[in-house]
Each structure stands twice: as structure tokens, then as C-alpha cells.
């Protein structure tokens, strides 16, 4: 591979990313492993760019889980200054009885906790009554 070669220290100095996090990002597949064998391998400008990108997205308030999707092209990168988009929705699975569940989106659950609780009770009452017949 052509271009400048960097040690991990040089890569850290250029990007402001700690050695700990560089190792972590490699381990998590966010950053290409260094060239060469083991921990003493070399990094290139592509690594510098990639890490710069990660830092920039972090400074916009994005979490690593989201950054992973942005980098993979699965999610659009936010415009600078734009609030971090909610890329995934979190859903809670509430078990009524084994084999029967209620799925509730996280924000709905937070704002309508009482309704959800009532639904669970009703559903459970119905389900157990149905079972005993």
C-alpha cells in the first residue's frame, strides 16, 4: 500500500483518539486492522480519515451504534448542526403469557405507561380465561 505509514502513537496524535479506543474500534470492526502482524502494525491515511469521520460524528452527538450505521451507509449522515436522528426504534416485548406478547415502542411506553399496564392486565385476564376453558 502506498502513502504515509503511521504507528498507533502517530495515528492517535493526528486524530486525538486514544490508543485504547483505536484498539477498541479495530476490535469492533469500525476501523480496518493495521497492516502487518499483531499490535505493532502500521496505519495509513485511510485510517486517519476514518477516525476523523468517527470523531466528527461523535462531536455531533451521535453514539457509536449510530455511527456504525452511518459509516456502513445504512443510515444518512446528519447535516452539521442537525440533531442526531433516531435511527432505530426501541421496542419492549411484554409477555402476557408464554407465546403471547405485547410490543410497545419505547417512547409510547414512557408516555402511556398507565395504559400499557392496564392493557397487560386485561390481556392477561383474557388470555388466562381463554386457556382455562
Amino acid at each position, binding site marked *: 500500500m502506498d502513502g504515509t505509514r503511521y504507528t498507533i502513537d502517530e495515528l492517535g496524535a493526528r486524530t486525538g483518539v486514544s490508543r485504547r479506543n483505536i484498539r477498541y474500534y479495530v476490535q469492533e470492526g469500525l476501523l480496518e486492522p493495521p497492516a502487518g502482524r499483531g499490535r505493532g502494525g502500521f496505519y495509513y491515511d485511510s485510517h486517519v480519515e476514518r477516525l476523523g469521520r468517527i470523531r466528527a460524528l461523535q462531536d455531533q452527538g451521535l*453514539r457509536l451504534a449510530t455511527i456504525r450505521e452511518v459509516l456502513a451507509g445504512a443510515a444518512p449522515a446528519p447535516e452539521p448542526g442537525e440533531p442526531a436522528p433516531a435511527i*432505530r426504534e426501541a421496542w419492549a416485548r411484554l409477555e402476557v403469557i408464554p407465546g403471547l406478547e405485547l410490543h410497545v415502542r419505547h417512547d409510547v411506553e414512557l408516555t402511556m405507561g398507565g395504559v400499557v399496564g392496564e392493557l397487560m392486565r386485561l390481556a392477561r385476564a383474557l388470555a388466562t380465561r381463554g386457556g382455562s376453558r
Partner: protein
Amino acid sequence: MTAGTAGLSVVRRDGEWAGQEAAVPLVGVSVQADLVGRGVRVEVTQTFENREAGPVEAVYRFPLPEGAALTGFRARVGERVFSGEVDERDRAFDRYDRALEQGHGAYLLDEERPNVFTLSVGNLNPGARAALTLTYVETLEAAGPEVRFTLPTTISPRYLPADAPDEDGVPAADRLHPTYADRVPYGLTLAVRVHGREGLAAVESPSHPVTCRLGADPVVVELASPSTRMDRDFVLTVRHAAAAPRRAWAAAGGQDGHGESFLQVDLALPAEPGDGPPGEVAFLLDCSGSMQGSSIDQARRALGIFLRGLPAGAPFNVYRFGSGFERLWPAARSATPEAAGQALAYLAKADADLGGTELLAPLQELCSQPLAGPGPRSVVLLTDGQVGNEAQVFDLVRAAAGRVRVFAVGIGHGPNDHLVRGLARASGGAAALIAPGERIEPRVLALFGKVMSPGVSGLRLQGVAGLDQAPADLVAFPGETVTLYGRWAGSAPPASVTVAGRVGGEARTWEVAVAAAEASPIRELWARAAIRDREEGGGAGGSRQEGRKARGARAALVELSKRYGVVCRETSFVVVEEREEADRTTGQAVLRKVPVPVTRGWHGRDEDVANSCSGVASFSTPLEVREEAAIAPRFFRRKERGVLGWAAFARPAPAPPPQHPDPDELLYDLLGAQQPSGGFELDDALARRLGASANGLRRAAASLGHPAPRAAYALISTALALAALEARFPAERATWAPLVQKSRDWLAAQEAKGRLAVDGHPLAAWAAARAQLGRATRGKRRR
């Protein structure tokens, strides 16, 4: 890591077990503890061995008690021992990583939370073995003469809200959660040496079968099984013959020439009954899935008794939460018999069916809702505390301190002690942790007296010039034992110190004589408390956008941590094992994350039917007998899961006669018969357990000459119930007395209206005699 959104799946299972068995490099964990009074020094040794063909790097995530001051870390490789050093977190990693790069051995210990740590064991060559020993000291919590030692063994999967921020560029879940497996090839061995044999009354473990060698001093307690599964906290309760009311020790700062001295002051605050809650009371019950089983039953029952004891007119409300939350009323209502009845009915329906542990949302509401009166809102929280966004929760309640105080009770096989205690610290409330197999009721009810009290605030050590006190700002409660530490420049210890504080609005002082301490870790305990003051002083930390102030706070933490050799969230312990050229590792070491078992009872896993399983050593009998005994299922709720185990445990000989029912059961049944309006209503069954009967009580009521038979029966019931509490539960008086105050008042008011006599005897005298009689016919209470 797949659970990027968190909130839902936090358990990771890395493939099938069969393929991994050979790849777990941890071979065992061994714990040696020395317990002197309230102080404990613990050595935890984790032994690793590489049985693979190539070099490995092992990473093991494990828990410690949140109050532990981690003061030492050493590696033993063959015959050589290497001592660790505290360094700034990223610098420590750099040293570790550079050493690995060059083929040396290196060992790194990071703090992720005050109760979650990560050990990295680098460049373990094929066939090599390394034993890593960490040392910590801790001042244990004391309740009267009882001291409790808790050692957590695994980390429960913790709930993280969907929007939990990354920490230093790493997802929070990746700094908290280990890899989980159903079976692991390593286990725990443990020995606790309890010193001061003369002053001990009893030693027992509600969590594990233990054996106890009573003969010598120290008394040695060991796990009965040679290699114990690490799926729950180990708990040891040590009861002393008497509580130490107050003591203080001073120690010079050691060899490093700072010219400093350190002071530790233990003070049992006198118990004084409060006049009722200073403001409204909110009950907050964790109904997340992890509370399923007997936890929720006992929690409900404890809250029910608590509710019945609320003074008339005290505003209160009931909340329950899981992934969402719900409340009984939109705003607090005054305690009337009707309101209490509604609340009891609401609690009776509460099941652990609300999913995750989203604690932040109900707390947000409780911190923002307008208060019913001038006093603070007291939140009584029952939870297993399995949340990972502790800092966010603490920030919330800290901002509301003065208006909202949290009384947190941790339940389960491995509750998050950092959350439970941190909540109490941040809000000026109190905390209690309950081990499985231990009754929830007494600990919750012990909180009752605290909720009724304004608390003791502004605790300050006086009498030493320039004293740097930690914790700097402590709120405590009558009846609690508090510990304060101090550092000062100089060497001459004072003869005594004064502890000043305020109870309600009233200033108080306590004088404590100071003794010289030999070989005591007061210096490190002071440092730990000072570190915590700075860590919990506000701000979650870890954000990239932090300002200069936060950077300054970080630097101060690092300085404190390095100077006193006590690890904090900004520092790590690191050891480098320099190797000869021939011994250096060549090639890339393979990463092996050590899998850990999921906490027992988590989301109904291995639901415990044998809750009462425990090992007990009582010093009232001279000899112990080991026997095999079937453990009777006390809470057999889930027949389909029920596995009735056999367990070996040591118990005093001769075997005590079976107690039917458990005497504590009677206490809680009796307290449960108190009417929200005051007074007791004894039904025939309960009356019979007191050695009377409903008919007998009716006859006695008739002889009162009261115009209304119902009211007369209530008078008789109440007098008998109160007398029975006095006669049978004198040791638990502090627990039940505040709860039944309203019934005493009610009875006194009735007696003031006219002399009440049963068959010519004054009512109180009749009841006392009746209660004694009932006690005699039912045999004596234990202890």
C-alpha cells in the same frame, strides 16, 4: 455487540457453549477476607491459565462492592511477583498495550463503575499461568450490633435506556456487561476470618451454605462447597454482643513524607422517634420482570404494612414501574381509611409484569411534580436496581435534593449496590440491601422510622484545625451508625473530636475520644470517600463536550487517586512483566472474553424455591453438627420450575424444634392487622395465634360495658395486639413501635373518655396478662 439500541436485549450469548469450553482461561477465583469490627480487608485472586496452542489475552469483567477502596494489584507469574501502580486510565492502557506490543506480559485493571471492573491479562503464552490478586478495604454497614459483609460475584444485565450516551467514545453497555454463559468452568472459594471471637454473638450467611470453625480466634467461615457457582452475592452477617456506640482512631499518613494524619470516626446516632413524615410519601415499586417471584410478594406486603402505619392525614401516593410507569392518583392524597384501602387494593394487584427497569421516568415525575406541602417528598423505592445509567439517575435526584429524598431498598441475588446507595447519598435519603432468603419486611420497616424523621444533616467533625472531611456532606438518620473520615496536616492526634449535626432544626454535638490506630487503612478509606465526593459531586462525566471545569475535576481525581494508591473511574492499576527475549510472545494474542453466569433469579431464571436456604452458626451452643437437610420451599410459586434442592449446611446442635409458624411471620401478620384509621382488628385465626379466640375477645368486649359492640371489640383487639407486640417482640421494638404509634394514640384517646375495665381489671393490665399467657402456651421465641 449487537444491542446497539440497548433497552431490549442486553444479554449476549457468544455462540454455543460446546465450542468454548477449552477457551475460558479463568480457572478459579479465591477470596480471603479479614474482618475486624466494621472494617474488612479482602484479597481476591483470579487465576488464569492458557490451555490453547497460541497466546491469548484474557478479559474478565467482574463486580466488587461499591464502597470498596481498591488499594493493591499484583501479578504472580511462576515464582515472580509484580506489583501494580495506579496511573491515569488512558496512560495505563498505553503502558499495557506497549508492553504487549513488545511481547512482554502486562496486566491492567480498569474501573467501569464503582462496582464494575475489567481485568485484562495480556500475552499469556501457551501453558502459562498467572495469578492476579487485588486488595481492597471497606468499612461495612452496621445496623445496631449487626455488621454485614457482601461480596458480589457476577454482574446482572443492566437496563440502559435507548438514548444512553456513550462513555468516552464507547457504548455504555460495552463498559458494563460481560459475556454471559449458562455454564462456566470456574468457581469461587472463599474464607472469611472474623476476628474478636469474644465479642461475637452469631455469624450467619443468608446467601450460601457455609461451614464455620468456632474454636479459635479468628473464627473462620468458609463456603461449604469447594467450588461455588458465581451467580449471586455472598452475604455474611456478623452479630456482635453489643453495638459500639462511638469510636475514633487516628493514624499517621505513612512513609511518603506528606506529613499528614488521618482520622476515622464511627458514631451511632441515638434513635429518636420522629413526629411523622416531614412531607408527602411516595411508594415506588419496581414491577420489572426481574422482580418476578417471591421478591414482588414480599415487597408488596412490606409496603402494605408501611402504608397502614402512615399517620392519619399524611399525603401519599403509589407508583409502579417497569419499562413504563403508572400511578394510583395524579397527585398525592391524604391518608384516610378510604385512601389507604384503595392503595392496598392497588398494591395487591401489582405484578412484576412491566418489562425493563426504566427508573428515570417515574423519578422525573416525582422530582418535578409540585409538593403537597412545605416538607420534602419521601420516595420509598423497592428495586433490584438493574439499571446502567446510574449517573443520569443521580444527577436527577441531586438536582431535586431538599425537595425529594429517596429511601432505596435493593432486592435480589445481585442488586446494583451502586444505584441503591448512590440514590440515597445523592438525595439525602437512606438505603437498605436485602439478601435473598432474608425477609424484606424488617428492613423496609426499619426505613419507616427514617421516613418519619427529618434526618440528621450537616454532620461536621470539629476540634481539628484544617480538617479535610469526607464525606463532606452526609445526611444520616437516628439509629444509624455513620462513619466520617478526616485528613489534616500534622501528626499529633487530638484527644477527642466533636461531631456536630442538626436534627430537624436543632443543633446537636457528640463528643468522641480518639485512639491511636495501628496498621489501619484509614488513609485509603479517607481517599476513597474523598474520591467519591468528587465523582458524585455532579456531572455524569465522560462527555466529549466537557468544559475546563470538568477537566480540572478529572485532574484532581487522578492526582488524589495516584497519591493515595486508590483506584477511581479516571485511573487504572497496571503491571508490566518484563520478559527475557526468549520468553516474549510472538504473534498476535487471541482475545478471550471470560463468560460469566447470569445472576440467579434474574427474570425468573432458576427461580429460587428454597429461599430460606442458609448456613447459620450460633454461638449460644458449643458444638456444630453437619447434616444433610432438605430445604423446605417457603415460597413455592412456580411448580413447573421448582427444583427442590438438597443442600449441606451446618447448624447448631441439637436441632431446634420446628417453629410453626415462623415467629417473624406473626409479627408481620399482626402489623398487617392494623387498621389505617388506627386500632387493630384481630380475626379468630390471628387471635388464636396470640393464645386467645374471637369468642373470648367478644366475651371480654361485652364486659367492658361499652354501648357499641364493634367498637368494644376493636378496643379489646387493639389492647391485646399492642400487649402481644411488647411481650413477644421486644428485640424488634424499634421496628414496630413507630408503625403502631397511631393505634397507641387511638387507644389512649378512647381510654381518656372513661375507665375501661375487663372483669374488673384495667384494660391494659388485662391485655398484658393475656399476652403473657398466650406467649407461655406457644413456647418461647428464638434468640
